[in-house]
């Protein structure tokens, strides 16, 4: 029996101990009328070898095209050690560290994770992960509404330059709590949120302003001015950032005069494979003053009976298992293993390594932009600085072009017409540190061929 170790003798003796005639008798409290009988639509069991054949065939079917796609998930190199270590059974098969003394490995890793995230974002404290970047933002919005006692409005300003899926997830998750999400337009020349457009909200009651850096288009926002505007209007500033970009960009803790209040984002670029969109992890950091409003697990340092340093889950009175209906969030299971991988990833890269990765991504995207823009009819749509993504205008409809590239094993970027029809025939491209000059030249040649056909 797959994964069940019982011998016939075991079963006989265990039933005798229980005093039951057979295993079926153990289900005698379930009303007979409810029993389901054989489940005929389930397939027959397969051996590991057979499933391996099936999975290999399916994986081969999907191939491995060269990836110039970003849009919230990035194709970075992950050091071999990261998943060899994170897949160790002691990390992989442990539960949430409720018994702290038997979970010091996980707890110390999470404490190191919190330390690294705080350092990277320039914030005081971090939690131990949320599901992904989009849900982290939804939680940040709920947190801001709870924490901002000066505001009664429950109004949140969200730029249209923020990832469209993030905006949808926030709508789903906060939509039933009387929170009003107000969309801010982006500047059509720069692709950024012009701080001057906020003037219409001057003096109004706003709970928080969301500030992406870089934004969905890869464009850098005027984060200092936006943060200062929020604080001048008694709103909290919520930063949504790419953690790799923070190796070179000013961290949210230093935005404007006072810094952002809450910082969240997608942790995938730190050691999580693309893996069809998950598991990734959301991160959330904040100022010390807001720590009791933070959702999710938090690990703290303490001492044992003999004064030795140790780690434990702390501030648990915020959480659902204690506070129930008054908890800061319903989150229980988070993305612990992804945070573990991210910790190892950051330890292996260090600030110098992460900076090299960030710079290489930026340089490759600059280079790719130049190559592609040399094709007639292809040009960058926005004139502002970008990190590692670029919006390009195409002379013809994007989806046909991308389909043809895909057939030639190149993921040539994302068609923006779905979410931004106002941009016309535009694609969002990305070249991480993994993309080579030959790959970029190949992309250029194939695109040129398609466009001149």
């Amino acid at each position, binding site marked *: 029996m797959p994964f069940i170790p019982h011998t016939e003798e075991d079963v006989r003796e265990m039933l005798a101990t229980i005093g039951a005639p057979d295993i079926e008798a153990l289900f005698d409290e379930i009303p007979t009328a409810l029993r389901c009988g054989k489940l005929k639509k389930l397939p027959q069991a397969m051996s590991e070898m057979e499933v391996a054949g099936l999975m290999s065939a399916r994986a081969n079917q999907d191939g491995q095209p060269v990836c110039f796609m970003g849009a919230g998930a990035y194709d970075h190199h992950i050091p071999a050690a990261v998943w060899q270590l994170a897949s160790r059974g002691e990390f992989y098969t442990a539960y949430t560290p409720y018994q702290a003394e038997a979970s010091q490995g996980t707890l110390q890793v999470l404490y190191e994770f919190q330390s690294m995230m705080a350092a990277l974002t320039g914030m005081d404290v971090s939690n131990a992960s949320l599901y992904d970047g989009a849900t982290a933002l939804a939680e940040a919005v709920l947190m801001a509404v709870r924490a901002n006692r000066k505001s009664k409005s429950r109004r949140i300003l969200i730029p249209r330059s923020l990832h469209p899926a993030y905006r949808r997830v926030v709508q789903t998750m906060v939509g039933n709590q009387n929170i009003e999400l107000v969309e801010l337009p982006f500047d059509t020349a720069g692709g950024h949120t012009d701080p001057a457009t906020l003037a219409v909200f001057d003096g109004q009651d706003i709970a928080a302003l969301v500030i992406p850096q870089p934004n969905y288009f890869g464009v850098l926002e005027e984060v200092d001015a936006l943060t200062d505007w929020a604080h001048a209007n008694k709103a909290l500033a919520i930063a949504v950032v790419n953690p790799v970009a923070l190796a070179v960009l000013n961290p949210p803790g230093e935005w404007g005069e006072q810094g952002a209040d809450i910082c969240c984002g997608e942790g995938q670029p730190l050691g999580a494979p693309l893996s069809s969109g998950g598991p990734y992890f959301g991160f959330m950091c904040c100022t010390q003053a807001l720590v009791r409003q933070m959702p999710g697990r938090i690990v703290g340092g303490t001492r*044992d009976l003999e004064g030795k340093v140790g780690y434990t889950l702390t501030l648990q009175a915020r959480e659902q298992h204690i506070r129930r209906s008054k908890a800061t969030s319903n989150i229980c299971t988070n993305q612990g293993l992804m945070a573990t991988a991210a910790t190892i990833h950051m330890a292996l890269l260090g600030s110098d390594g992460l900076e090299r990765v960030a710079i290489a991504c930026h340089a490759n995207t600059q280079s790719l932009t130049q190559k592609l823009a040399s094709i007639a009819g292809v040009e960058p749509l926005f004139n502002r600085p970008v990190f590692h993504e670029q919006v390009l205008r195409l002379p013809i409809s994007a989806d046909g072009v991308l389909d043809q590239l895909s057939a030639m094993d190149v993921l040539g970027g994302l068609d923006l017409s779905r979410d931004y029809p106002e941009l016309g025939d535009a694609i969002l491209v990305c070249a991480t540190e993994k993309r080579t000059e030959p790959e970029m030249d190949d992309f250029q040649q194939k695109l040129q061929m398609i466009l001149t056909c």
Partner: protein
Amino acid sequence: MLIYQQSRTGRRAAAQAPLQKAELSGIPEAFRRKQRADLPEVSEMQAVRHYTRLSQQNFSIDTQFYPLGSCTMKYNPRGCNSLAMLPNLLARHPEAPADHSQGFMACIYELQEMLKEVTGMQAVSLSPAAGAQGEFAGVAMIRAYHDARGDDARTEILVPDAAHGTNPASAVMCGYKVREIPSGADGDVDVEALRKVVGPQTAGIMLTNPSTLGVFDRKIEEIAKLVHEAGGLLYYDGANLNAILGKVRPGDMGFDVIHVNLHKTFSTPHGGGGPGAGPVGVSKRLQPYLPVPMVAHDGERYHWLTEVDCPESIGRLSTFAGNAGVLLRAYIYARMLGGEGMERVAEYSTLNANYMMKRLTDAGFEAAYPDRRATHEFILTLQKQAKQLGVNTMDFAKRLLDYGYHAPTTYFPLLVPECLLIEPTETETREELDGFIDALCSIKQEAEEHPEQVKSAPHNLPVKRLDDVRAARELDLAWKPDNFN
């Protein structure tokens, strides 16, 4: 020692980043970071050694029996891990076009279909990232259903007192008030109490069956009828699905919406706190509201169902399609079990739990519900030991760690005083169960003869009992260089 304390300025794992440092030509100075982030600077070997050593300070299923009640800590097959990590699967971008996705989507589609069959529901969406997000999605669908009918007087969700804390917290996130329903002395929901509070203000009830009290609620049909007649819907928390897999289906019990914890019943790893996956299933009337995306099959090809195809959907719960890698592991597990294997999960997890309960009560421990069958888990209450010997459940739990067993769930559910919720799962051998039973008996004897030894446990772990009051009063949540200077 922290990785930070091993850091030396200028040391690097040089093979792990681009060797040539390019120019940051396109980013004006004003946007740039002024000071480097304080990340550790260590060699590759230092990092490998450090995290290997840390891993060795964990209990895990791979190293210990881990009978944590309501968490289903069964063996996580290695094949599920390695096959879900085939290079092409890891490299697949979530926005990859359909022609580079058919293999992946086939797995997702077939998992949807298998979950429909095993839960008896009409349709399934795999996108929730964990049980709590599944609960949120489920209650949000209940709300969408009532809203669509203009039935806006329904403001309350009913939740039994034994429920997981996530239930009331999820209901509140959907804008509902929570009303608690007491459990009867036999562990079943108190139907008379339910009758008094159910009414036109009831949006729905959230139930776990078997409940967290380790018993199957025998009055489930009556409860379903009561709530349905009042116009409310029934939500099934799948935390304990392992106990009834292939025996009785939530859909047949009358539930309208369910979630399944794949990281429990379908054996995906817990990873020290996640990731999990909490797919939701619904009856026909809730189908329009399922969260997107989902995979559909037109007889020839697989394609995604999005907001465009499902305009009444409650929407999107993650940036892409949820925890895909977890879904693949569950899919692989389900294929290795097949239909018969799934029935055996319920059979042998129940056999193991009843065997343990019988042996432990024979040895003088008190079961919380001695007249009931155990399901895949059961509760002991150590009230007597706490009162007479001053040795409480926490002390027993910590001492078990010394014996090399992870402790069962303690002090949950909240309504049984000094409780241990024990869930052995089907993958444990009888010898392992016997060893654990012997350890508990031996601790009981220690508690009688040398209570201090139990009260000061653990003794054999990397740290002694930790001061969690200090952790909460003197918050230390991130390493600062001056902490250690």
